[in-house]
């Protein structure tokens, strides 16, 4: 957060000595939007939300901003109707509105609705307000923009409430049955409860249902027969984990994206936070927009489409997770192969293994980004530098998604076979998002 404020101060300095009406340029800056998303990324991270819940936060905020753009920029069209259950977005008189400012405000307002505490984006909102004030935006324009932002974000928030999120807060928890060997059980060191077992009841954005893309069954649990498919899956993880190269460790770390990794040192237990998988991809959208020199509207559209792709991908994946309820490699290796002390390189997250959430989301997000920025789009991922992980460069979004398959496997938290399926089905979800949502007219 400190860094953001520093950046903002620099902007004030520039704004202070420039001409009036400078606000037009200051707000028509895709980087300002990316910084606002990043500020939200910190709020989501600080809230300790599960990655799938985080994906919901980004999605509604990004759609709210995009709907303002669709009103203000004639090249773009509303998602209402394209998303079947999103009603037509109505709006007040837009005379005297600065649409970029309004889009930023709409993002923050809708973002606040799903995060904590009340007014979670107030710091960023006051930065945006200061920029407007310092750069000579009239109070009438500010007011008109705010009105539009409130109207659009209000409609998106109302619509979001129909997605079953509130109902799933009290839906039945996952049942632990230790007599079924293949069934997922909580893993060290937290032994946390299974996360969001009812996420398949969340209303998808573009998919017709959570089970629209039904993945093949995982191989049957069989660790007695060394030739069984499942035995091979497990041993691949163990063997890879026992001989990781520095490069492989780096790959695993780049895609770790564990929202809250618990660290246990003696009696002390604390949590290390990172952006979640959808948070990481939000960051990649920013990098892509900058690398591709996208304009403000295109940038907002890119965030929205990528967030939606991630949102539906998680629903597809979670539907399968709590259908197959497959145990994690760590459990199989500890409990059934006799290596009770074996630990994966990354920390096993608290939900069933099959399929891989990160691989699914990454593949889906990569499809959305490829649709906007094109294939063979080279970029350098700097997202994890602030968490002490070096950058990695990619030749395309799809290449990054494939690398993610290996990352989860090297990390020792997923079977590679499972990641391959996840990538394939993530791509299907992403392709559907691209097919159903036409943002540019």
């Amino acid at each position, binding site marked *: 957060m400190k860094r953001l404020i520093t950046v903002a101060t620099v902007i004030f300095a520039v704004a202070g000595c420039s001409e009036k009406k400078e606000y037009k340029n200051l707000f028509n800056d895709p980087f300002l939007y990316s910084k606002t998303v990043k500020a939200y990324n910190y709020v989501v991270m*600080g809230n300790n939300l599960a990655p799938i819940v985080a994906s919901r936060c980004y999605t509604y905020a990004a759609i709210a901003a995009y709907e303002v753009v669709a009103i203000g920029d004639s090249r773009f069209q509303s998602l209402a109707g394209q998303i079947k259950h999103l009603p037509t977005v109505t709006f007040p008189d837009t005379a005297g509105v600065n649409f970029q400012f309004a889009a930023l405000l709409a993002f923050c307002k809708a973002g606040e609705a799903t995060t*904590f505490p*009340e007014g979670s984006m107030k710091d960023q909102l006051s930065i945006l307000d200061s920029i407007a004030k310092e750069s000579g935006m009239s109070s009438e324009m500010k007011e008109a923009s705010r009105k539009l932002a409130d109207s659009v974000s209000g409609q998106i928030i109302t619509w979001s409430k129909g997605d079953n999120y*509130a109902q799933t*807060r*009290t839906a039945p*928890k996952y*049942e632990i*049955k230790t007599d079924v060997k293949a069934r997922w059980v909580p893993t060290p060191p937290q032994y946390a409860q299974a996360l969001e077992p009812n996420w398949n009841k969340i209303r998808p954005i573009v998919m017709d249902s959570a089970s629209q893309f039904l993945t093949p069954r995982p191989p049957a649990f069989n660790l007695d027969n060394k030739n069984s498919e499942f035995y091979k899956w497990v041993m691949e993880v163990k063997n890879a984990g026992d001989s990781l190269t520095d490069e492989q460790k780096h790959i695993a770390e780049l895609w770790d994206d564990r929202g809250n990794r618990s660290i246990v040192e003696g*009696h002390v237990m604390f949590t290390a936070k990172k952006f979640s998988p959808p948070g990481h991809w939000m960051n990649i959208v920013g990098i892509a927009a900058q690398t591709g020199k996208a304009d403000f509207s295109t940038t907002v559209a890119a965030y929205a489409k990528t967030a939606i792709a991630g949102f539906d991908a998680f629903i597809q994946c979670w539907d399968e997770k709590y259908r197959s309820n497959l145990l994690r490699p760590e459990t199989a290796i500890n409990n059934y192969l006799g290596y009770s002390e074996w630990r994966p390189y990354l920390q096993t997250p608290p939900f069933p293994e099959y399929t891989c959430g990160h691989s699914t989301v990454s593949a889906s997000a990569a499809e959305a980004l490829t649709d906007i920025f094109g294939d063979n789009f080279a970029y350098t991922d700097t997202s994890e530098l602030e968490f002490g992980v070096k950058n990695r460069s990619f030749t395309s979004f799809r290449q990054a998604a494939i690398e993610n398959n290996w990352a989860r496997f090297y990390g020792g938290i997923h079977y590679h076979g499972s990641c391959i399926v996840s990538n394939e089905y993530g791509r299907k979800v992403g392709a559907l998002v691209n097919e159903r949502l036409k943002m540019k007219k």
Partner: protein
Amino acid sequence: MVINTLEEKALILKNNTENKKSIVLSFKGESLNKYGLGAKAYLFTKNGLQYQQLTLTRGFQSSVEPKLFFGLDTLSIVDSMLIVWPDQTYQLLKNLAAGKAVELRKAGAQDFFDYTQWFRNKKVFSPVELLSGWKHKENDFYDFNIQYLIPHKLSTRGPKVAVADVNGDGLDDMYVCGGKTQPGALFIQKQDGSFAESNKPIFEIDAGSEDVDAAFFDANGDKHPDLLVTSGGNEVLKASIEGADRLYLNDGKGNFKKSELAFPIQYESKSCITYADIDKDGDNDFFIGNLASQTAYGQPVNSYLYLNNGNAKFDLATRETIFLQAVGMVTSAAFADVNNDTWPDLVITGEWMPLKIFINSKGRFTETAVPQSTGLWQCLLPADVNSDGFVDFLAGNWGHNSKLWSGKNGPLKLYMKDFDNNGAVEQVLCYTIDGKEYTFLAKDELERSLPVLKKAYLKYSEVAGKTVQYLFYDLFKDYQELKAEVLSSSCFINDGKGNFVRIDLPEELQMAPLMSFAKNEIARQASFVAAGNYYGVTPYEGRYDGMLPAAFSYDKQKKTFILDGIISTFDGEARDIKWVTQAGRNKLMLITRNNNTISFYRANY
């Protein structure tokens, strides 16, 4: 005393007591346990027994010197000292002078310490070899997975047992309630005292029902005990038939036949049966207590009184006869003549309920309640404990060995509301200290079903030490409020004028939720037996497994209860205590246990 503290100065505390004696023990263990951790020291002096066990942990990251300190007041001698090491070897030392440091060596210990030999309890009951291999089977159901915030499970309250001589051979037979997917079982007693299962196919049909209570009484006026079984369980029923109550008619030879359409069945989570001829028309009527909504714990539910038309067909009593709408979460009920007017009155109680007394005036009931008697009541037994001619009530409650009781000085409360408007009721359990109410569950536990709470306060530090009203800010209104003012297992003494005085049962019977009472049918004077334990709570509350069944009686002079003896070999969750008559009129006591076999005892009188 020297105290080291984290990131603070060390403290030295000077001992200012004068003319007091003490003795300090240190231990020299063997192998890796060089300080003798876990060693127990029993000191016998003129002033009685003192006991400590060597353990160094004193809370988070805190430890003490590996010694035991005993204060002896002014005594200069310890008569004897018994040391029991963790491997159960022991040593006995005599006539130890105070003021000296004593080092005890594991090497000097010997033999095997037998607690039952050294510390003899008054053995009022001895276990009898298993007379029936029947084992209650609790199904895998975790109530908290469905209702996150309820205080405890309601699905592990079985098995109850009903006893009667069903075939007229002078030997008591029994019906034990089955768990879900387990059929209930009728056992006919043989001459040798063992039990043989009977009428199996009849009960197997209803294996899907979780039997929660059963009673033998004559339903059709043929003088043979018929059997009524009521169903329940806290699982939302997949098929309503699983919630059916069943009446089985007895041909007098112990052959039972289900009587269909005998009465209008309520397919709900019920708890208890009691019967009496409430209208003096010569036939038995019955009451069925209803426990809880399977999706909204706490909400008071309707119970039912059924009136017999004489041919084992029963109709629901009208509201004018008795008003039982939303009467509460009933766990136990009994018919007893409270005012000695020869008409059986109905006494019911339950969780978050007072002791409710429905006075029967010629077949019509008027409700009264004992003031300040709300509790988490689990069982009820009418008995004239003080032999004054008026029936009193023994009532089992949650007990004192609990976070809900210890250190609290006001009522336990349960607030209910759909706080987040998502269509499901949330329960907020609160305790009271000095008039202020605090949530029992931590912020994160509450937020699992109420994320909206984070809108006001994100961090633990913001709500630490704050009341429920503060934590719930403007959401805390329009709720339904339930309370439990008493958690002590108690006796309500009836003065015959409509007043009841509540007195606590002995501390030994406050160790856990008390689930069942029975009269001690062997004792010459009025004496009773009680048992309990309850595992179905959250790990934070901590399972109750420390109470042993005990016999106790009322001391009329001291106006208090005294313990007659305990059953030290008991293990498990006691659910029902009953007596069975054997050949030669011998009496045998049985205690049923949840998810376990039945324990049998013979009295040593």
